[in-house]
């Protein structure tokens, strides 16, 4: 992908999160949960605030439970991964 800036030396993992500010992200969480929403804020603990978020709670059977939330703070210690979605 980044054919241009592959040489960007000082790119840290958290920078990838920064790039997603004001963009939609997928956050995978402990407890078989995922949250999609627009990233409004984060810190180095992966604490985050998402807007217009959809939470997906997965269980063994069938479709995940989906919950909507306009604005939610996610505590970082539940976070497994953060991924951009376009």
């Amino acid at each position, binding site marked *: *992908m980044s*054919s*241009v*800036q592959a040489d960007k030396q000082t790119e840290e993992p958290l920078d990838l999160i920064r790039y997603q500010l004001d963009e939609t992200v997928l956050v995978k969480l402990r407890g078989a949960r995922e949250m999609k929403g627009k990233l409004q804020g984060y810190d180095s603990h992966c604490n985050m605030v998402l807007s217009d978020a959809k939470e997906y709670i997965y269980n063994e059977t069938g479709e995940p439970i989906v919950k909507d939330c306009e604005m939610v703070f996610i505590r970082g210690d539940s976070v497994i991964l953060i991924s951009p979605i376009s």
Partner: protein
Amino acid sequence: MSFFGFDPSKPPQGGPSESYDFENTYDGLGDQLDDADDALNDETFGGSGDVGKDFNFGATKGAAPPPPQTVSYARAAVATDEDFMSELWGTAKPQPEVSNPVSAGEKKILSLEEIEAQLTAIDPSRQPQQHPMQPFPQQQYGMPGMMPMQYGYMPPMYGGQYPGMPPQMMGQPGFYGQMPPIPGQIPGQMPGQLPGQLPGQPAHGQQMPQGQMPPQIPHQIPQQPPQQPPQQPPQPVPVQHQQPVQAPSVETVPEPVESVTSIPTETVKQGENTPAVPLSEILAPSTREEIAQVASKKSSRPVNLSQFPVLGSKSTPQQRSNRPYHHQNHHYNDEDDDGEYHEPLILTPEQQIKAARRQEKVMRIMKYSGIMNPKDKDFVTRFQLSQIVTEDPYNEDFYAQVFKVIHPKPNQVGQPQEQNNSIAQAYLDQSGHRLGGRYKRADVALQRMQQQVQRAVTVAKERPKLTQYVREGALGRISIGSGKKPRQQLEIFSQAVQKGLEEEGETGEGETDKENKGINVKKLNNAISNPAINTNLDSDSIKKYGRKDIMGILENIITNLMTIESESRLSTEVDTNNLWESLKILEQTSPRVNDPKEVNPFIQCLNHEKALKIVSRLFKFLSREQILTIATLIMSNLGNLDVIKHGSYTTYEDKKVPSKYLKLIETYSLTFTKALMNSVQDFKFNEIIGLLVILIEHNNVSFISTTKIGLSILTTLLSRAELIRGEGTISAADLSEWSSCYDELFTALESRISLIFPPNDVESIESYVWQFLATLALGGKLNHQRIIVDEVRDEIFSVMNKAKALDSTDINNFYKKQNLLNNLNMFLVVMGLVADENEIRELQT
């Protein structure tokens, strides 16, 4: 509070419910408490009789210290003001435990009596000890001083000592005892008071209950010479701390410990952090004095110091000394104390004088005790801590600070944010972030564009118009055939049609790559509108920017911008080179690309909302030329913008732009369009012409005109040009250039003008469309206007019919109707016409 074993000690002490009940303690404290205490003491300490009095408050470094403070405070307070005491009791929550002991001590009467008793009772040997003790007290004071500062109360003796004392000291059971030994180091600063206390405490070990710390300090103290002058300051203290000598005093220490407990964390910290000496020095005076006062007042015998020498004989003197404190500490000692205290103490004149002096000092100090209740102190402490956390609280607390300014709470208690306000305000002024924020103002940009168009219309009307010839046939019966470059028109016309056809054809056929129709259209546009430009670019020199690259570039821009914004708060001279470089405006400016990733990165950035939100902030730090450069880049790359590429209903089967892009378009209207509007004000006539020419050359104007943003940009440029033209200061050369530019634009649009009306527009309020038509008509000659009217005649009548269909009795519909007609008339007025829902008439001027 009771971290360090205070609790353990408590039960023994507090065993009696009295300890907790202030009232109880206050009243009958002394005797009752003493009894109970003694019993408890035995339990805790193992029943060493002597130990009882010696409580080494210090011994329990951590826990013990706090209680002592309270006690000391309380005493001090009592000495000065009863109210103060009561307040303390009532308010001080953490101290309750301590309070018990304190309460005992509190009773003025008791304390006085006790002190007196102590003084009197103090054996000569004890007295000497006391003297040594005094020195300690001083230290303690010093320490306490710290505490007091925090708490506001000066723990008369113990508290002061403990806090001030280094952890070791604190921990050591017999503070005082220790002190005495050290006395040499610490002159009998505390003499009067300490002595009393020390003596009072018979059994060092016993008292120590808290004594977790006790053993630390060997009983060296006793050995120490009583010689130490009471007043001599803490200087020695440091040494003391170092020296285990204090240990001997351990016995006495217990009391201090208690005080420590009362002053929980803070005390402990102090003790740990601060070398006993410094603190003691600083605070020592006051605390010492206090202690002295208490002692002196009550027993007026502070002089006992003379007995210091006795210190060497640890037990008795210490015990006594402790006594006074004991109250606080505990009744355990009291018993012993009582006996001892009762013994009459005789002060030498010297001592009396000293005592008086101390009293004075204490009084002075005490005058201010109790002004703050524990809550106040807690607040101050927290506030101070919050300020200390960072040297730059504004930075650390940026969000909250700025947020409070932006969204003030009416009921918010006045807070010391005054200074920050200005910073936050500066931030707001510069960032203007509210426009891009969640709380959007009215559609400022479009309103302003409308105003500009209206102004242009007004200006134009004041000029002699061709339109007057045409009024009659405005709606179709064209009487004058102008033929402005008929041949040319035809050529271009056919070309335009061809473009359209090709465009539609290609968009319809799915290409093999993933690119969507919009991109196809864009490529088509490029290919068609730039036939002269060779498409075979050197692929090696072309960079491809992935999404991550773009996001990185964009964040880099924003970071640079924020840096500059914060710099500009400090100085007016700001280096914007970094910012400009990071925009990458001059990279790969060619609008013709084979891969959307090859598009200029800044243009790609503009596909993200966060870039749009900063456009106006960005422009604040760019020069006119730089902005013009950006505008030029954008004009040539319009087709590469998502809002254009995906913003035309013509590329969708249902003739509707997906909501995903509608949102982006909305953001554009609020941000980019506004910034462009502002910038255009600074552009010169020929620059605007240049932008238009570039736009026409590099884009399919007809396609762009079917997008809201594209049309807005055209309107902005045209209306601005029209305004400048209205000023009448345009050179002939510029005018002719303008004329040919307009012709080119018009021919690109001709025959497709009606397409600018998006179908399925439920609201039917296409004000921006009518604004564009008005502007277009303004710039055109009679034949242009005729063609425009001819092409949009259906739309005109459609609007009139819609207006007519609306029931004006409904207030909402009434406004809607007015809106429809107003929009329509903005256009018609240019030609001297005005419409209502029934007919079109000539404009009466």
